[in-house]
């Protein structure tokens, strides 16, 4: 398998580390249902047989975390995005400084 890092280009699988499903988002720890939400976040997976958005780390390369969209039955990769960019777009900037 080869992954095209948006920064480094097309590289072999062994430069990357896998983390898993990119769908679960870390919940709000202060919410009322925080425990339920965290259990689901940390332990439950859709694990579909088709398209899968997943987190990879370009460990032997640029150290970027990537969100790879891959068909897990064919291993065909349809897109690779920069995790931080997606994450920024996903969450309003509340976590950082006021």
């Amino acid at each position, binding site marked *: 398998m*080869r992954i095209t890092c948006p920064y480094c280009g097309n590289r072999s699988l062994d430069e990357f580390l896998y983390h898993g499903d990119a769908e679960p988002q870390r919940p709000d720890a202060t919410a009322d249902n925080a425990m339920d939400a965290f259990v689901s976040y940390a332990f439950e997976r859709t694990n579909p047989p088709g398209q899968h958005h997943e987190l990879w780390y370009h460990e032997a390369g640029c150290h970027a975390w990537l969100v790879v969209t891959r068909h897990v039955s064919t*291993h065909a990769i349809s897109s690779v995005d920069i995790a931080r960019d997606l994450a920024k777009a996903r969450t309003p900037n509340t976590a950082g400084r006021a």
Partner: protein
Amino acid sequence: MGNSSYRSKTGGLIDRSQTIHFWFDGVRYPAHPGDTLASALLANGVRLAGRSFKYHRPRGILAAGSEEPNALVELRTGARREPNTKATVVEVFDGLEAFSQNRWPSLKFDVMSINSLLAPIFTAGFYYKTFMWPAALWEKLYEPAIRRAAGLGRASDDPDPDRYEKLTAFCDVLVIGGGPAGLMAAVTAARSGARVILADENFNLGGRAIDDASVIDDQPAAQWVCAIEAELDQHSDVRVMRRTSVFGTFDGGTYGALERVSDHLPSPPSGIPRQRMWRIVAKQTVLASGATERPIVFGNNDRTGVMLAGAVRTYINRYGVLPGRRAVVFVNNDYAASTARDLVRAGAAVVAIVDSRPGSTDAVRAVARDVGCPLLDGAVVIDALGSQRLKGAVVRNAAGSTETLSCDLIAMSGGWNPNIQLTTHLGGKPQWSEQLSTFTSGVLPPGMSVAGAASGEFSLKGAIVGGAKVGQVALTQCGYQPVDCAIPSAISESAAMSPLWRVDGGRGKAFVDQQNDVTTLDIELAEREGFRAVEHLKRYTTLGMATDQGRTSNVNALAIMAELTQKSIPQTGMTMARPPYTPVAIGAFAGHHRDKHFKPTRLPPSYAWAKSHGAVFVETGLWLRPSYFPRPGERDWLESVTREVKTVRNSVGICDVSTLGKIDVQGPDAAAFLDKIYMNAMASLAIGRCRYGCMLREDGILLDDGTVARLGQHHYFVTTTTANAGKVFQHLEFCRQWIWPHFDVQIISATEQWAQYAVAGPHSRALLRKIVDQPFDISDQEFPYMQVGEMTVCGGVQARLFRLSFSGERAYEISVPARYGEAFMAALLEAGEEFDACPYGTEALGVMRIEKGHISGAEINGTTTPTDVGLGAMMSRKKDFIGNVLGQRAGLLDPDRPTLVGFQPVDRGQRLRAGAHFLARGVKEIAENDDGYMTSVAYSPTLGHWIGLGLLKRGPQRIGEIVRAFDPLRGYDTLVEVVSPVFIDAKGERVRG
């Protein structure tokens, strides 16, 4: 020495000007360069090459390529012994030694051939039905007997002495196979300027065009091939790889290929590997791997002298060898009938052409007429006669009567199977072609196309045209402009065929898988017993599981099964092909990474100094760290370690702690970020101060611990444990980039930049004062416990000083740029001479941390919570951090969980051992009473006895209790007293002041 008896006068690509010699089973034979072991054996009239797996039947040579199931030999001797090597792919060199295998005492007379008599019992799956009674005999008697009979050749007894290399290559177009189709594809792509790799497993290019002595562009194929090769060599972006088998298709256009660099030499020349493992990354791939001929299954079809027709032609045309003098040519197709021409041209007699097709064809009739032999149409060979040497063929003619033809060779052909294994490695299913009566490729791996015989295009002309066409498509896909090129002319031969899988009516066993001795009867039995799915058939009978992976048997077998179950062949299906296409030496996959080079070795900055000072090293992860520094006269490690600990406790010692992970955390949000990472507060840390911190996994379990130093408003410097350095860095990047992307913070690894030394002991400050440059003040007032500062040492070397203590003594960690690490170690010890300072290693480090009750890898073992190790109070309640929520789950708060405490033997003279389990006194030694386990132990020189840390159920409430440290594995049972985990200086006074 002249030609051997079966060597034809002319022909072949061998170098007749040179005669070399090889040994087979101790006998010396002549050969020519360019021979394979198989061709050389045949040239010398040697037919018997091996014994089969189960029945030990005498076997000869069936094929001429990598599909050979029978002629397996042990090659070479000693450490280079190489079992199960196909004689058909071994290139002979002078002095080559080969041995037959799986026979005793000799190839000709093999005791185990009585298995053949027991064949009625040794049917498929016989052992599933027996050897069950009495149960105890299985391991004692039955299985040892089975294992004695198992296996073919013998592995070498010694480490493989040869070198292997692994390489990566990139290309636009990878062409697999250098027959006419592959050559045309490669040359077409090359002319357009594409980067091309052409790989062929053979040592000569040309494929079947050479085997068949075809004519291309009005010249002998060999000449045409030479011209193409010469042209390919002209292109700087073309790499022609001979002796290279492409063995696997992997995701992302990646192919595995094995180049046999030196296997044709007595031993690899210096610096040259035996084999190279290539990872080829191709944009486009042309599979031009040709086809494999199908045998026909008939009685005793495994006799030596029964050979594939294509192989017969190969031996004649490529090697100038006659595989027999009187041949019966048994075919179901036109192409193979030409074998008769080659045989006659080479001086053999063709007794008859037996064509299973009623009426045969014009093409075959023409051959028979040309060679002047009888053509028996609608006839089949039902039995081969002779035991170790073929004597005749029993032929049943169209009318049903039989006759025996005397012969020493049966050249048979049941048609051809395209070599499509590489198209299926990614899951593509072969498709049945009614027209060709064989499987062709189905859904192809991305970027692959198929040409020539591999695509079911069996004619030479078709291969040439197809190769050029597919090459053109591939180069266009890669963005190159095709260049017009002429298509060489070739005569289109007929490939007409009508399927024939097996012939019944023979008296002898009819073998389908020759190596694994699977017969038609076994297939029938499997069918009867319900193993009808092809994959069941395979597993039950072991058909197709031998070293040839059923190249010559799978299709026949499933066709027979289809016949038995009255299903169509596509309904019956084809077994799954897997990499490797041909077996590959395990050493080649490992390459450089064996012995000491298995994994890289990381050397700490003081390594050379430590080595020259007699350090004993220990592997910690990839690092090699000094574990202690023995001195003359010390009897064992304990004595050295004890001395080192005492030196630290009483004076001062120095330890290389550079292996700790070091991470620079900078940015406006550095403080807020670290507050999320650590379970305790980090934002409140004052500039110039350090703090111990722990981080958790999201599930509330301890991930790592270390120190955090604040160097500036926006600048922290954190350390991790040696073991977790990489993991923590990755975790921080994860949190920074994915969980909290808005944090404005950068993290940079500084592990390698700094040589860091712990300077520990009461005299540490006095020592450091001699090292630290003026005017830096390291007095207790200016530089109290947990202070950090930047300064220079030794006359201007930049340094960082941390007042931290792992040992529990007054201590510092000081770092200098790594290049000075070695000299700095020496400088520190020189400065420490007046205090009798000594270097200490990981052992003493461990002893002192246990004396202080500090946790380490044995306690942070991936299952413990902060509360388990007595750090629950450190957890902040005021902020969110990784692990905060899930750490509150009931199971993790259970007061019954084993919790960290200290232990000392009741009899102070006794030794403690980690891994012992705790039992309350007076209870039974059963799991229900298991109260926890000892995590770390040390002999404490300070206390004069052994001490331990461990996790004990409700430990802190049991201080003072006496429990058993139970170690049945090593035979110890020690009474220990539960004590505080901090054995010395509980108040922590020594680190201050």
